[in-house]
């Protein structure tokens, strides 16, 4: 007794209208239906943060929201914030400091970092670690990620 519903929403600034399976989560909708594969499918129960996207300007777990719930919403993914140049400084800092190895967590990590620095560019290392605690990286040990976020925050303040 499944069903489909038609949803209309904005994705990275473009209006999109699609018929979706009601049980499809927003992340799968972005990846499978819109081919926006920058956001990653990790644990599918909200622990790892690989699926982090923005809905109406705030980061959420893409795996913990249904696509049908995004009716009328403004959704942004790593593709959108990359193309707009909004997080270019963060991306550059991650690159320079080797703040990634396999890169699986990176899209979510960048969006989390962007949300933190928007409200608190002067965040301390402890505050950075606290904020990204919901984004798992199994390669880097976080040190270089914290370095990168801290450096960008300082640069934005100066």
């Amino acid at each position, binding site marked *: 007794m499944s069903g489909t519903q038609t949803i209309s929403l904005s994705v990275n600034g473009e209006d999109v209208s699609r018929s979706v399976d009601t*049980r499809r989560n927003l992340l799968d909708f972005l990846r499978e239906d819109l081919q926006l594969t920058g956001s990653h499918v990790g644990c599918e129960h*909200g622990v790892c943060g690989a699926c982090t996207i923005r809905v109406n300007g705030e980061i959420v777990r893409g795996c*913990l929201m249904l696509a*049908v*719930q995004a009716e009328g919403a403004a959704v942004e993914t790593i593709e959108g914030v990359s193309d707009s140049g909004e997080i270019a400084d963060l991306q550059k800092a991650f690159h320079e400091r080797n703040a990634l190895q396999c890169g699986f967590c990176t899209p979510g990590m960048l969006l989390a970092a962007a949300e933190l620095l928007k409200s608190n560019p002067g965040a301390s290392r402890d505050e950075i670690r606290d904020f990204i605690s919901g984004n798992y990286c199994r390669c880097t040990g976080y040190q270089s990620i914290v370095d990168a976020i801290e450096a960008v925050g300082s640069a934005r303040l100066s």
Partner: protein
Amino acid sequence: MKPAPFEYVRAKSMDDIFATFQQHGDDALILAGGQSLMPMLNMRLASPKILVDINRIPELEGISVSGDVLRIGALTRHRKLGSSADVAQHAPLLKLAVPYIAHPAIRNRGTIGGSLSHADPAAELPACAIASDATINVTGRKGDRTIAAADFFLGIFDTALEAGEILVSIDIPTIGATERIVFDELARRRGDYAMTGLAAKATVDGGTLRDLRLVFFAVADRPLVARETMAALEGVEYSPGMVDAVEDALATDLQDVIGDLHTPAETKRHLARVLVDRVLAQLVGGELS
């Protein structure tokens, strides 16, 4: 994993919810913030036939003060709870608890009504509701009811909500000038489920504690009110290490503590004692928020 198929109803009014419940009964589940329900659907621990999304019902939103009561709508997100000036001023215990609830991306979606209705024994807000002497407002086709938070939680994922009822809001008595609150939680990693947590409130007169509330979470099948310890500390003047003086009362309160996969009951009892020691000192130390 992916959820089993279900039908999705986007409720636009309370009547939409009641109509769906009347038609489908227990086959329908309410979807609020989804931060606990969606994992359960994804892991197929829950497979409802109908999901009723309540995220677009204006009556369930909003924070307001009326006289000496702060009312928080069921759809209030954890992030809002942490940033609201009214919550900070009138129910600071909840504000203190917010940073301990999962992670920022989850706090942007999760709701107070969802947390209370879900009744996870390790959740922060149920314990805060009891420690704050809150009442919970629910409604159903038969009408409205008010339930004391202390009577609301009945077990793991079990509440006093009856079939077809929905939590509408929570009322919290505004904090008094001489009341102090403390919240503390021990977890292995930031944002993880608590190993043991404690929400506390007291009227502090000089160094003397009155009307103390000590509510543990993550130690039993529901929030645990430490009644014996509270009674033993009533009217007592604080002194460092006073937790030792109430050791027997605390042992009685904690006799039915349940261990979990990672933390045995004995460890939880030890952590509970550590928290009482810290929290009493902080209550008297004058932390107001």
